[in-house]
């Protein structure tokens, strides 16, 4: 019995590598649980699916990499908080790792208000959420991917500075970047915006590559990747607001006329039905951008996590069932990973394309009558 469990754990570990997706905590948590099971007989090592999935796609104050022999290996990230009473506090998340209180701060436990966030414990025992700009897992991942992105693009542009573009054609990574940049530039931006394309191209290209690289990094299961950044509403909200501003700040007279006094029968305008719809549309367009990216990436992460979780959930159900489901989960995990690669590109593409189209509509010239 023990041997078969070890085999199933080995297969499970194999999956962790081969599916290229597995939450590190799952690798860590079920193993001791199963050891307990074998030691204590009937005691079951239940996996808290809620915490497993949402702990993964959510944010954290430390970057848990793996657990070796029961000891967590994690990067402790700096906590930066400002209390209304005591001012700024900067300390390592190491101090609050196990629910400890440090300088009057601790992470709110489940069931409390602001669960998972840092709260200030006031003298009277009540909890207050301070101004929290800690470098969390997502922020740290954001820094890494941004550095990567800047390095990639600036490295690419340095190649062009150092080479005679009329005599040489880039190869390797620069060639790949050029292909992507020009695909977005020609197929999306130029087609949608037209003659003003060069004015908006830097923003749209930055958005495309930012989303794309973060999507890809999200698929990588271990350290520099694995954060669920583009599946986080704050990130997509920011990007959607950027597009909203790009559309509405530089919108021309024709665009505003179409919103406030559209070309429809007067009774639709007198009782301002159409303008109302148009104004709502102004906000729903970026809102749909925000939700689309967020939901797609988050759903992909949850699907993959769920597939991998099957292996651990069935670990108690006998070697045969576990083994069979492991194989299915691995195959399905591979399929999901490939699908996520497609989605990573597709969502970046769609976000950029719709942003371009919205901007293009705001720059449209009135049709000659």
């Amino acid at each position, binding site marked *: 019995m023990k041997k078969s469990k070890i085999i199933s754990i080995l297969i499970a570990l194999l999956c962790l590598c081969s599916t290229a997706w597995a939450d590190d905590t799952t690798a860590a948590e079920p193993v001791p649980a199963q050891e307990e099971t074998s030691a204590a007989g009937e005691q079951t090592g239940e996996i808290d699916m809620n915490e497993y999935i*949402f702990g993964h*796609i*959510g*944010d954290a104050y430390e970057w848990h990499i793996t657990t070796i022999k029961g000891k967590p290996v994690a990067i402790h990230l700096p906590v930066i908080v400002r209390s209304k009473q005591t001012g700024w506090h900067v300390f390592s998340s190491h101090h609050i790792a196990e629910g400890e209180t440090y300088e009057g701060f601790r992470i709110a436990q489940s069931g409390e208000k602001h*669960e*998972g*966030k840092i709260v200030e414990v006031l003298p009277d025992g009540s909890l207050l959420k301070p*101004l*929290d*700009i*800690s*470098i*969390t897992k*997502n*922020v740290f991942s*954001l*820094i890494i991917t*941004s550095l990567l*992105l*800047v390095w990639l*693009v*600036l490295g*690419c*542009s340095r190649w*062009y*500075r150092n080479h005679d*573009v*009329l005599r040489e*054609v880039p190869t390797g990574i620069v060639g790949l*970047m*050029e292909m992507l*940049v*020009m695909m977005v*530039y020609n197929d999306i931006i130029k087609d949608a915006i037209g003659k003003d394309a*060069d004015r908006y*191209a*830097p*923003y749209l*290209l*930055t958005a495309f*590559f*930012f989303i794309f690289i973060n999507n890809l990094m999200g698929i990588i299961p271990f350290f520099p990747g694995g954060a669920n950044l583009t599946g*986080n*509403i*704050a*990130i997509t*909200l*920011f*990007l959607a607001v*950027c597009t909203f501003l790009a559309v509405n700040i530089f919108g021309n007279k024709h665009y505003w006329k179409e919103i406030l006094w559209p070309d429809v029968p007067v009774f639709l305008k007198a009782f301002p039905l159409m303008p109302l719809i148009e104004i709502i549309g102004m906000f729903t367009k970026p809102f749909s951008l925000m939700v689309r990216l967020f939901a797609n990436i*988050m759903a992909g992460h949850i699907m993959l996590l769920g597939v991998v979780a099957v292996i651990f959930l069935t670990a108690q159900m006998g070697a045969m069932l576990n083994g069979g489901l492991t194989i299915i989960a691995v195959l399905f995990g591979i399929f999901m990973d490939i699908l996520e690669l497609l989605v990573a590109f597709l969502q970046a593409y769609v976000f950029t394309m719709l942003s371009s189209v919205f901007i293009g509509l705001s720059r449209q010239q009135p049709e000659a009558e």
Partner: protein
Amino acid sequence: MSLVTPDFGLLFWMTVIFAIVFFLLAKFGFPMITGMVNKRTDYIGKSLADAREAQRQLRDLAGQQEKLIDETRKEQSRILAEAASTRDEIIASAREKAQAETAGMISAARKDIEAEKESALRDVRREVADLSVAIAEKLVRRELSEENKQTELIDALIDEVKSAQ
């Protein structure tokens, strides 16, 4: 639910980091790449147009060349024909001239021969006459030594002249 409420800290850092990334990429990154690639695209387009133009010129040139070769060939054949006719003319005239000359020479030779013959005949005749006279003198000198013979001869001569008349 915390999943759909944007976290302020992340939003704050996202704003800061995205602004920096955007600034760097928009200033030093993408315009450089798109500009350079557009430059290359234009260059390639121009090169293609140039190549087409060159090809067209080459085609024109080939046509011109062909025309030139054609003309040259015609000219050549014309010159050849002219040369042939000239040659024929020259040969014909030379032949005529030669014939005329030959004829002249032949006639001159004939005349010369005639004249030579005449003078030769004259010489022969004179010789013969001289000889005859000498013979006759000798004969006459011998004959006339006898009297009757002189009369006989005179008679015979007179007869001869008479019968000749």
